[in-house]
């Protein structure tokens, strides 16, 4: 292959591409749509999975969750521990919690339900409950007779036709809680929260200090301590730093606390991989077919070029370049549209029952999809044009 051959090759490709603008646009549009159909759906599923996990992190587990050893009920000296952890550079927030359960009664309805004792200010750093108050207000440190109630316990927030037992209450109403040790106290509903996650919207929250009062504890105990980190993926290095403080408790990363959610998100990802693969195959086939038809229509042109003495490799090369141009342009346009969509949806997230979902497109998916579509276009250009270029000249020209 001489440099002049390359010149003729590019020239022929260029002329073919620019003369058949409609063909070019149609093929590029198909490529771009294939790209979008694969990446967009996948990114929504990924966004959904992320949102589920985020719901768990922001509601249940934090990035790290420090818990007592199995044979212990509580973390002791929890206040000092919180102070120490907070001193680790980079830690975003640390909050203690205590778990209990109680039977709640309002008018004639009684429901046995978990009660979460929180430090309202610290809790703001590790969870999103304070942002999720949809009626009334969030707890403050001074509140001793107030509680937050999850929307799932409140009748007016239930979905239509839902028959689960709920309280017909509103902000300001008083609910009586009876604890396992016989302690009974009335709490006024200060706010109602709704995160959108089924797993956490069924709690009642009371100030951390109330636990001591109810259960008559004097020790500085906690059921667990949540640690919020700057981002996901750095859990291990922070866990080590906490161990370095001499902490001998269980330090769990959020992933290990997910349980069912983990399995669910895992299933989503597998589904995503399957549909993604099918999508890629379909796109591959579509692209192959349209480029195949396009090249087959150029059979006569290929014959003429051969007849007048243009080398087979030049002709073949010019068709591969054309296909490559379809592939690259299609993928670039697909990428641009996808970026725009992602941007729009990050500003106006899709509202789904579990909460707002922002599609997530991983670099890996972007690269593989782009690569496979471009590869498909090369293959689709190469084989039919090689077949045409190998054909007998007279058959190609006169349609033998």
């Amino acid at each position, binding site marked *: 292959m001489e440099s002049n051959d390359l010149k*003729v090759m590019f020239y022929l490709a260029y*002329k*073919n591409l620019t003369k*058949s603008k409609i063909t070019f646009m149609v093929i590029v549009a198909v490529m771009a749509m294939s790209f979008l159909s694969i990446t967009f759906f996948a990114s929504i599923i990924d966004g959904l999975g992320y949102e589920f996990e985020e719901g768990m992190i922001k509601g249940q587990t934090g990035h790290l969750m420090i818990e007592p050893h199995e044979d212990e009920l509580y973390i002791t000296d929890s206040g000092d521990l919180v102070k120490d952890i907070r001193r680790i550079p980079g830690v975003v927030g640390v909050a203690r919690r205590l778990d209990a359960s109680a039977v709640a009664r309002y008018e004639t309805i009684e429901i046995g339900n978990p009660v979460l004792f929180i430090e309202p200010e610290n809790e703001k750093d590790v969870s999103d409950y304070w942002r999720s108050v949809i009626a009334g207000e969030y707890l403050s440190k001074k509140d001793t007779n107030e509680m937050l109630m999850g929307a799932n316990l409140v009748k007016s927030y239930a979905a239509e036709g839902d028959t689960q037992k709920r309280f017909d209450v509103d902000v300001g109403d008083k609910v009586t809680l009876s604890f396992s040790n016989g302690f009974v106290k009335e709490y006024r509903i200060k706010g109602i929260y709704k995160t959108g996650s089924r797993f956490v919207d069924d709690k009642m929250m009371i100030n951390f200090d109330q636990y001591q009062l109810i259960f008559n504890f004097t020790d500085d105990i906690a059921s667990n301590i949540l640690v919020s980190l700057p981002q996901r993926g750095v859990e291990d290095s922070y866990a080590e730093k906490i161990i370095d403080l001499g902490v001998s408790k269980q330090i769990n990363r959020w992933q290990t606390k997910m349980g069912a959610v983990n399995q669910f998100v895992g299933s989503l990802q597998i589904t995503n991989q399957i549909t993604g693969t099918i999508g890629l195959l379909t796109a591959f086939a579509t692209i192959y077919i349209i480029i195949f038809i396009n090249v087959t229509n150029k059979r006569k042109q290929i014959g*003429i070029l051969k007849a007048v*003495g*243009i*080398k087979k490799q030049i002709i073949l090369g010019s068709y591969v370049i054309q296909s490559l141009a379809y592939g690259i342009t299609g993928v670039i346009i697909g990428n641009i549209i996808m970026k725009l969509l992602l941007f729009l949806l990050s500003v106006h997230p899709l509202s789904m029952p579990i909460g707002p979902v922002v599609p997530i497109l991983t670099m890996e998916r972007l690269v593989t999809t782009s690569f496979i579509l471009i590869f498909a276009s090369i293959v689709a250009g190469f084989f039919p044009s090689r077949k045409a270029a190998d054909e007998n*000249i007279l058959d190609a020209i006169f349609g033998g």
Partner: protein
Amino acid sequence: MERTIIKTKNLERVYTTGAVKTYALRDISIEIKEGEFVAIMGKSGSGKSTLLHQLGLLDKPTKGSITIGGNDVINISEKERTRFRLNELGYVFQSYNLIPELTAIENVYITAMARDLKREEYERLAEEMLAAVGLEDRMHHYPSELSGGQQQRVSIARALVNKPKILFADEPTANLDSASSEDVINLFRKFNKEIGQTIVMVTHEKDEGEKADRIIWVKDGLLDMEKLKSI
């Protein structure tokens, strides 16, 4: 003193379709001299096109030999045949066969470009050729914007741009009206006279054949000896 440019010996071209064998050419031995304008004539199906395709290296005979300018052109590689077509041969087809994606001038210079000429050079050559066929004002039109006669003249310019040893034409006027047909034949005559262009042309038209220096009559894949003698 005239040199032989094409010489064939016992050319045979058999098409095999399943069990059926069609002898398009049975046994053709001819010689064509440099600078000759030769017409190939004969009935439909007699093998004229097949003969022209063998001479023009667009197809390969099943038997026999062809030499062009003394070179064996049968037992050489496909690559060499391609190079031979590019540098030494020119073609005019009945249905023009221009590349629709290229303008008139681009159709003409694409082969010159493939010969590694400089841009100014191949553009100049193509302009000269188009001027010589009377299309200086249609150079940047696409084939779809030209009449049949104009397209055929573009294809003549394309065939001659590389100054080929031989110009082959298969019924170049069959799709044209009588005025355009006359233009084409007159152009052939002109190039034959002025630059001594060797031309081998298949035609059905008696008067076109008569404008050539000589007629090679073909019948059933053989030379038509009776007609050849009667001349």
